[in-house]
């Protein structure tokens, strides 16, 4: 009797754990190819969370009879579905567990210099709007590239380099992607084509961190090339006079930099219409953050995490936003800033920060030990008495 109960209980536990760990879904869809078949093509589904981070293993299958079904992929709010057809890769980002592919549209373009001479034998990478590469092709002797069997009504990006300068073009299949003429203008070194724009919560973020007696500052600037030609040259970042530079990086990659009278300069190149993220780390001897802005800037924010925001003094082109519901107090620019404008912030000293013990929970070791002793001694005494 007890044995069978025991066996049953164990079996039950096995079942419970299975349901506790494994939540799986299946993703399905159809694939149609103009003048061809997709049968045998490989489909890979990767589950992602809302922040586009992978939450499970990618699962693959092949297309049969114009459709596919991927089972046992982890349950997720988003799926990236990748279809490999011949030498091209196609992507779909799906919120529903279904994604259909239609490969029927064509794309053709001719790459030429401003004087009309074709750009020959140059590698061009075609990417989907979400980023991953679809194909890599080379221009012919007339500067032409052509692809068919792409998805209709979709924006594709073409990336290429010429004499070290990056170029980027966007083409929409079915709209302007047939016989497009793409002109590769010579690059500029004029920094005024770069503007800080489009960032969230601001395009230029200044984050000071109090670290003992020194203040460490991280600045991140999102720059867009708003001109019609690529930018290749030095990007200037203004710094306070007392700053000691720790590092400078572009797109997360640390680079060599040069100190200038106003701040520092790093070399970068960016295609027309594309954006770049530059960041600089430096330390300040005191809490005085006084610096010029070098680019047209739509919004700038100074994040005041860990500082007593009421004790911060700042220039009039900044205002304090500390509304309830905001996770962190910050100073934001009242209006857009132009090259040559300066901002000024004076931070309170290290004593200004609240000593919250949030990350080091208090543990009453003494009280618990005393409690244990009391129970042991009291318990034994109680047993002796009663």
């Amino acid at each position, binding site marked *: *009797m007890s*044995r069978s109960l*025991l066996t049953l209980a*164990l079996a039950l*536990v*096995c079942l*419970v*754990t*299975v349901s*506790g*760990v*494994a939540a*799986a879904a299946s993703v399905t869809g159809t694939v149609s190819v103009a003048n061809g078949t997709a049968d045998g093509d490989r489909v890979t589904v990767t589950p992602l969370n809302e922040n586009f981070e992978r939450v499970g*293993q990618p*699962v693959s299958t092949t297309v049969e009879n114009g459709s596919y079904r991927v089972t*046992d992929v982890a349950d997720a709010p988003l799926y990236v579905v990748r279809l490999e057809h011949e030498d091209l890769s196609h992507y779909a980002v799906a919120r529903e567990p279904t994604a259909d592919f239609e490969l029927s549209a064509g794309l053709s373009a001719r790459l030429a210099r401003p004087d009309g001479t074709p750009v020959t034998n140059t590698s061009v990478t075609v990417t989907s709007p979400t980023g991953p590469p679809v194909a890599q092709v080379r221009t012919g002797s007339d500067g032409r590239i052509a692809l068919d069997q792409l998805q209709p009504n979709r924006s594709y990006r073409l990336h290429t380099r010429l004499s070290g300068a990056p170029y980027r073009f966007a083409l929409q299949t079915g709209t302007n992607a047939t016989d497009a003429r793409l002109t590769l203008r010579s690059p500029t070194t004029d920094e005024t084509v770069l503007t800080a724009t489009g960032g969230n919560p601001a395009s230029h973020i200044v984050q000071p961190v*109090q*670290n*003992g*007696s*020194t203040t*460490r500052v991280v600045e991140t600037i999102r720059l867009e090339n708003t001109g019609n030609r690529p930018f290749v040259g030095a990007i200037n970042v203004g710094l306070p006079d007392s700053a*000691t530079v*720790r590092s400078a990086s572009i797109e997360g990659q640390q680079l060599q930099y040069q100190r200038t009278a106003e701040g520092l300069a790093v070399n970068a190149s960016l295609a027309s219409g594309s954006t770049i993220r530059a960041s600089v780390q430096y*330390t300040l001897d005191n809490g005085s953050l006084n610096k010029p802005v070098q680019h047209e800037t739509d919004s700038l924010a100074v994040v005041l995490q*860990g500082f007593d925001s009421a004790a911060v003094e700042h220039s009039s082109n900044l205002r304090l936003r500390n509304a309830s519901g905001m996770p962190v107090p910050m100073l934001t620019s009242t209006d857009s800033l132009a090259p040559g404008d300066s901002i000024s912030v004076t931070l309170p000293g*290290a004593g200004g*920060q609240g*000593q*919250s*013990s*949030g*990350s*080091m*929970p208090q*543990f009453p*070791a*003494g009280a*618990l030990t005393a*409690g*244990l002793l009391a*129970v*042991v001694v009291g*318990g*034994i005494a109680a*047993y002796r008495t009663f």
Partner: protein
Amino acid sequence: MTTPGTALLAGGTALSLGATVLLAVGYVRRDDQFDTIVTRLVAGGATLFLAALAFLTYQFVTTDYTNAYVWQNTADYLPLLYRITGVYASNAGSLLLWTAIAALVAAWAIWRRDLADASARLVGVVTMGAVTYFGVMLLLDSPFKHISTTVSGGTPTTGSGLNPLLIDPYMAIHPPLMFIGYALLTMPFAIGVAHFVGLVRGNEGLFRSWNGSVTRWLRAAWLFLTAALALGALWSYTVLGWGGIWAWDPVETAIFIPWLFLTATLHAVVNYRPGDRYSVLAPAMIASTFALVVYTTTVVRSGVFRSVHSFADNGAGLGMLILMGATAVLGVGLPLGYWLLREESTSEDEPWLTRSTLLHGAVLALGMLAFISLWGLTFPVLRDLATGIEVEVTARYYNRWSYPVTLLTLLLLGFYMDYDVEGKRRALAGLGLFGVATVVAAVYAPSESWTLGAGTERSTGFYALVGQMSALSVFPPVAYVLMAVLKRGLARIPGAPRRTQLKQTGVVFVHVGVAVLVFSLAFTYLFTGQASVIVDSGANGEAVDVPNSPYAVQTLGFESYSLPEQPNVERVALSTTELQERGTATNSTTQVVHGTITDIRRGPRAAVYQLDESGIWVGVTSRNGTSGASYARGDSIVARGAVMWNYVPQTDAVVVTDPTNVGTTASPPDSLGLERVRVQAVNLAVSEGDRQVAVGQAAQRRYPRQGGMQTRDVLIDRGLAYDTYVIAAVQGDTASLTVKRIPLMTPLRLSVVSLLVGMLLIFLFDPAHGVWTRPLAPTAETDPDPTTSD
């Protein structure tokens, strides 16, 4: 190529096989004519396996790279201790260690007990069979393979190096202890299997007369496994930089499962009464323990898991799988089959609440805990086999399932200890009181950080329910156990015979250890706090406050250095004579040579240097015109490149290289890989308020020759209430420090000591089955403890 080591292994295996066969024949024919020769064969086999182990150790100590396994697992710069550690750094060497100890245990058992009867021969068949099997596995995947089977072009001059994670004093002793524990379990396994073979063949089985022997083997194995587990945990605490002693890593879990099951088995064996209670379950459990060891080892070494222990994941191979099958059939299948076929005999007249039923509860509870871990380990493998999808069972599964079962186990333990001296009525009142207290404590959390699920992902169902429990719920069961165990000790120890006193003291130590262990573990994990700060040389000598913590750190200086400190180029590079001796076998292989330039020919795209007036020349080609440094006659140079024999007329061989791979002996090129360890360290003083808690060095070690792998040297202050733990990531003269405060680590360490001391006392002085006090007649072995009757 046959090496001396392989010969030793083959000899050991052959002798063990001979012993196994003769024992089997002797058992079947009930014939004692082979007994003398068997004893000699067994001793000879054990000697040869030990000799093989000693020989491998010798090869490691002298860094004899003609052995491929030595070359793969050590390097010259390592100190003696870590050259020895290399012996068990990978599968083949670990298996040799296991085999040698198992052979020794088998030989000792046969010498000690003689082969007096048929059942003793059967036990011998199983133990020697296991040793033989290990021997065959070793021959198939030998730690004595000649280097020529792995690399061509002669014996390498430098070793590949030891896995950086294993360069730690704890790791030097953890594996031997573990394998001693495993090897000791071979004996109980053999006894259990022999018992069931006896039962199936219609006689009584041998458990009755071997009960004492089994108990001693099990206790000895438990001692070693406990020590091994504790050392492994301390290793992960310092080396992996988890700042935690346990992470439910598959390999950790794989030792933990047999340990838990062994603990349950010990309770079952105590409860064994011949022909009555546990006459099936106790022998079945002792047989299964070893099967579990083999199973968990196979699962984690089969490369299914990407665990921190993946240094040995080159596949367990078929051998381990077959062994798993065999032990499962013998250790689990045989007892289970017997149990199913035997009709159930129930004694209805027994009262439901007795010591025996309580011990049964303990066996069940511990078995359940073992099952939780076992299932967590097995489930991903089953799922992988069934669906081809790898899933990971997270710590949450283990923690949340084990926690309530652990509390129940503690309450049961307290109740048993109480009941044993107080009787039913009073003990039930105590259980009621502490049971209610546990439930109340489970719903009362002084703050958010007391709930078990604090700071982890949201969950549903059972996991959410346990996640909402307060850690305070561990307090009443632990207090209950401490009180009941001490109270029972006070009642039992004074006035008892000396051996009983010692044994009961051991029982108190073990169970107090368990209670303190559980208590400390729960709070260690929940109340570990951490904070970070970046320090640089600019703040030298000045205390920097660590934000959100009571700590301040003072940087006393940065250091960085390489190991070995003075690399010997001539040891790493071949001389021209050595290269001549190796001859054309080195053709087209990459070698390092050194010598003095005696002649020079320069061309437009290459310069060729003759070394030591020999036929060996070094050709330095220059890519797109950059020639690099040029050398003159009389310079001592070292070069790494492809050796081309009979490539250029008038030379024997040319070492073809480029400017980046050649340099003078005084400043050799980086590509030689002379730098084995790059240490970047920061000297720190950590203070809490006005009190200085720790002064020392935190460092990171990078191993460029091992894929740039990094380890961290942490700075730990071991305090009574909590440890202060500092990890540093050093970059030049900037260090990013993480300061952790980990409570109750010292009680945790003491609890392990208490477990070991307690078990040692029981092992030595148990009046019934102790080593010290073993009675001569094994039939007199019964538990003399007075049993409370109501």
